[in-house]
């Protein structure tokens, strides 16, 4: 019994050594190499980051995408995709976890969040409700139309992104956006820790004098993951998915987009403006929570 445990431990230690070696070996181009017994496979010699020469089986090599897409690559959409978001207003109780997750991943300060949760009331007779608001990634985007330098652009996968290395800070897009989705770096952004170079797909690092906004986290989408806000929502109010695949998920359930939109009578804000948003809202009826006003101290 003891022996067996010791053997396990030895095995564990042995494998962790291998993992250690493999971690060293993971230069920007290699993700992992396994601890398989050496056989007659072709080997590849690699130089680790600390200068040690190692030998790895070729079959164990995997290309990894380490850097996010460059500003040039980020102008092309992910082929065959059309991203949409659905917000179920009946499930939002202003928990603000989406804002927190977004602020964390985009390294934002609370004074310029990409997501706002608005207290909406359509008319005096109906109850107020909370409306999480991001960029609507319109199919007919006013911001893209007015940008003088093409710093903000529309991609084939429906995303509207900003290249903050090209933005001249004229703020015409902010004036044009009817949903006030955009924020500006009025001062120097707080120092951001990142080992990646700038990409419009991560919006990090921010630059003084340029415009920013919700980007639908394309770096996550490239890894077939959903944006951070979706997984952060404790109530599953936010769905994200692909219109072409006709499916959206809120992290716990995956549903058919067309069915969801049809059955719940989804709508978009200010349809009459002709902006064709890619964020749908499900009406705040049959709510999970009764409406409660925001606590003191929360900016409103």
């Amino acid at each position, binding site marked *: 019994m003891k022996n067996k445990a010791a053997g396990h431990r030895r095995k564990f230690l042995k494998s962790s050594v291998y993992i250690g070696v493999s971690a060293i070996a993971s230069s920007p181009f290699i993700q992992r190499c396994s601890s398989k017994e050496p056989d007659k496979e072709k080997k590849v010699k690699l130089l680790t980051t600390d200068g040690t020469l190692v030998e790895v089986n070729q079959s164990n090599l995997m290309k990894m995408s380490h850097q996010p897409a460059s500003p040039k690559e980020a102008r092309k959409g992910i082929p065959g995709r059309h991203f949409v978001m659905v917000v179920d207003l009946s499930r939002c109780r202003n928990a603000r976890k989406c804002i927190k997750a977004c602020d964390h991943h985009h390294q934002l300060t609370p004074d310029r969040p990409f997501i706002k949760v608005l207290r909406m009331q359509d008319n005096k007779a109906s109850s107020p409700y909370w409306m999480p608001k991001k960029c609507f990634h319109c199919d007919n985007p006013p911001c893209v139309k007015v940008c003088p330098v*093409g710093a903000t652009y529309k991609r084939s996968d429906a995303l509207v992104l900003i290249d903050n290395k090209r*933005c001249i800070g004229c703020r015409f897009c902010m*004036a044009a956006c009817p949903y006030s989705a955009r924020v500006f770096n009025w*001062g120097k952004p707080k120092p951001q820790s990142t080992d990646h170079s700038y990409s419009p797909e991560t919006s990090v690092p921010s630059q003084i004098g340029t415009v920013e906004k919700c980007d639908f986290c394309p770096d996550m989408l490239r890894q077939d993951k959903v944006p951070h806000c979706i997984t952060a929502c404790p109530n599953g109010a936010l769905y994200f998915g692909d219109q072409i695949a006709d499916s959206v998920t809120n992290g716990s359930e995956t549903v058919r987009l067309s069915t969801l939109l049809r059955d719940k009578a989804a709508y978009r804000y200010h349809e009459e403006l002709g902006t064709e948003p890619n964020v749908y809202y499900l009406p705040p009826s049959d709510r999970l929570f009764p409406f409660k006003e925001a606590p003191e101290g929360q900016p409103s």
Partner: protein
Amino acid sequence: MAKDKIFLNDQFNQKVEKDLLAHLLPNKKVGNIFIFVLLAFILVGIYAYYRQLRYGLIVTSMRDYTSWGVYISNFVFLVAISLVGSLFSSILKLSKATWSTPLTRISEIIAIAAIICASVIIIVDMGRPDRFINVLIHGRIQSPIIWDVIIITTYLTISVLLLYISLIPDLAICRDKLTDAPGWKKWFYKVFSINWHGTPEQNNILHKVSFMLSVMVIPVAFAIHTVTSWLFSTTWRPGWDSTNLGPYFVSGALMAGAAVIIVAMYFIRNALNIKEYLTDKLFDHMGKLLVLLSLVYLYFNINEYLGPAFKMVGVEGEHIIELFFGKYASMYWLVQVFGLVLPIVVLVFAWGRKPLPMLIISILVLLGAWFKRFLIVIPSLQHPYLPIQDVDESYRHYIPSWEEWAITFASFAGCLLIITFLVKLLPVIPIWETKKEEGNEPKQQEV
């Protein structure tokens, strides 16, 4: 008889030259104090801009909702002022209103000064002025900002040409007569009068070119302010969602332009002591012109507000209430009453068209014009479609910071400095058009 007339004309012409060239010789210190004050304003503005470059636009009071502030409203004001050049050197000239001839050069000088300062201010408003080159590298012709860049450079070019072409004969007079001017001035007159001797052939070319330019400048002048209005009406904002905005801006600009000419006339005729040329009669004409332009602007004002105020649609209605009864109400009504209604009332009377009342009214018109543009830009930005929530309280208000004021005043000072410099360098009244010559009907007589 004919000989007598020629003799009288000669005498008159000599006097004209003497009077209108007098200020180009080294003269009194009064102007120098004025220049010193202007330079002081500009230096403070430069310091404010240095702070803005160092810390970012955070030194302004602009924030995410009020993302455009006095820089943009001041830009619109300066572009409006610049329209005056085309009004005098083209619209009035082509409609044969000869009384306006003494004012053409002043108006062209003001136009150029205003358009230069407008271009500077728009660069000051940019978050990344260091990337201005991107406008040329990545410029998208679909964007109204690119339209504005193109039209401003075109208008500036034509305005400089208009000023210069009509200056050539006068520069030749300066070259011939101002023998005791400082060396650099003499050099300037000699080089820029490009060997003008008033031969029939030269005159012919001059008339052709200036006629062509004065026709060309009309569509460009209308375009410059219409495009500026499109910067607003092409956005998805309730307060700017108006097809009226183009003519509304142009008519307001012509009115402000006439007012600025009156102010300039008043000070120039006192400073240079040329009351014989900028006569009371000329003020009377300008007063009538200002009434006409004010009435046109009044019409477009009513047109701009009546529809939305009648319907009171959603956010548009809230915006109207804010202007009429809300936090901008006092500014709004002061502007409308003192900047628009009062001038019309006062200037229809002959006593109102005397120089001093005209000066006061014109200053009111200019103040009104400046604050009107503030009222066009800022309250609309504070009324977006979705409510302003979840932001710091400071995002809901906009009171310009000292840096913004300093830069705004510096832009006025810069404008005045360019005007002062040109007035000290050039004859402010076109001498060759004032002189009586055979075949060149005297224009002063009709004043």
